């Protein structure tokens, strides 16, 4: 079960869909972890697009997903260990996209948000970008105080991995940062920090 229905939320929060095959001259697919399954579902319904597909997969150690993607026969497959290790390559590949290219992003919110940002900055129109959430519901959160981004936040509140303040996750999302906003929870009563609860529980 890697699909998750996000509860109705705020206006700045991105909405994810289900990847659908589209006509295009190029198909650039970027996924992480369980996002590979969304790409495989997509390919199952339209195997022909793989001949023009450039797949960038951030495996997070999952060899099974990498092998399945390879078996699907994309024109190019690159498997990277983490997003920071892969982002330069993503930028370079986005530079080469032509008119009519289709972008498919699948996996965690952090991956989708960051890759979306790169694609928009490269001039890809929003209408040519599809997203599908799979896997972890962890959030990327920027500490509004020190500006450091903490990856993989699973609880609310949590401790900023940069400055150590206790942060709650405000319902506010920046596409530019691909991150939610974290705000000090005990500013008014230092030390009074509620027990962390798991997000979406």
């Amino acid at each position, binding site marked *: 079960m890697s699909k998750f229905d996000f509860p109705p939320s705020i206006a700045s*929060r991105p909405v994810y869909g289900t990847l659908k095959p589209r006509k295009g001259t190029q198909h650039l697919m970027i996924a992480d972890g369980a996002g590979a399954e969304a790409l495989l579902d997509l390919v199952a319904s339209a195997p022909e697009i793989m001949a023009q597909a450039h797949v960038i997969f951030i495996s997070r150690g999952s060899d099974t997903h990498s092998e399945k993607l390879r078996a699907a026969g994309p024109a190019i497959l690159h498997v990277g260990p983490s997003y920071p290790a892969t982002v330069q390559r993503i930028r370079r590949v986005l530079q080469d996209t032509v008119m009519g290219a289709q972008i498919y992003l699948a996996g965690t919110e952090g991956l989708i948000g960051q890759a979306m940002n790169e694609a928009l900055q490269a001039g890809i129109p929003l209408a040519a970008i599809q997203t599908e959430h799979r896997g972890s519901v962890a959030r990327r959160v920027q500490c509004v*105080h020190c*500006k450091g981004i903490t990856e993989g936040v699973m609880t609310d509140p949590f401790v900023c991995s940069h400055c150590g*303040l206790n942060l709650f996750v*405000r*319902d506010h999302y*920046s*596409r530019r940062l691909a991150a939610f906003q974290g705000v*000090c929870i005990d500013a*008014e009563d230092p030390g009074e920090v509620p027990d962390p609860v798991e997000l979406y529980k």
Partner: protein
Amino acid sequence: MTIQFNDETFRDDYTFRNSEWAIKRFPFPFHEDSYMYSVNMEQHRGGPKGSVYEKRFDVDEHYISEMRDRALVLADDPLRCQSLPHMTLAGWDLLELIMVSKSEDYPDLFELHRNGNQWRWINKPLGIDDTFTFMDEASLPYGPMEYITRQAQGDYAVLDQRENNLWMDAGMVTTQADWSLDFDIGMNFFEWHAPVPLAHEMGVFKRALKFLLNIQQGSPARRLNWTMTVNPLLDTSPENYHKWGRQKTTLTPENLGRKQHLRVELQTFYRLPRSNALVFPIRCYLIALEDLVTVPKWGRRLHRVIRDLPEELATYKGFIRNRPMILDYLAQYDDGLPTSPGIWPDIDTEPPLQK
């Protein structure tokens, strides 16, 4: 009249004070005894003589001290002033708008001499006399938006207009009611308002956006917004909330009248000529409750508004924990008499406090 500028602080020892003149012209934001969100826009075409509506960019006794406070905020955190690369033209538009308006509205304080693109700007209160080339960034010590908004009270959000939406693509934000330009930059109108409760469901933002998209050059609009702040702290930023949040716990029944301030934003909206951007000045006025209640009508009305405000709004505006104490204080100034409609103090016609 010539303005007597105060030498005062908005931090640490908080020596900020409003004179009698500033109290009487305070932009009281409630036109009736209750409050709920509304689009509440009107044309910004002057107003009663001496009121904060009279001039395009109001200058008051706090000008010099506010600009000093802004410089302190920027030295501490340069991210409070940002402009995405495509917004430079809008910055020049804004510089022109403020220089022209201030030199026309306050000729004794500001002068603008233009000879083609060679401009000379004299700001007497701040002791500035600069000659520069209009549209040449290298001729100013800062970018055009930063240069002029270091000399203009209030925050400035500069909004790009495209795809039938407004985009927060530049701004100078140091006197904000708890929002972060650094986080919100690049967002559209609905995105940056996402944390506001109730208003989305009421359709307020859709109607407001429709209005703003249609603002024409030469026809600015305005509205008032409000919140509450403990101490006259201009920089109630989320960035520094872990430092100032604790001040909310320092209220006592004895110090509340002096420390608790009503914070009012005069928001105006101007279409800019070259860039077609919209500039959204957000001017912050602070008043201690003990000064506010010297106007009997305002004392009566503020008590009723705060008492009846929905809990979500008191939470969002950040004073839910202090509301009971604020109400105890304000109740002393509400004798139950009816109040006259509209925001003006009506000192001469409203009855004095009957208790």
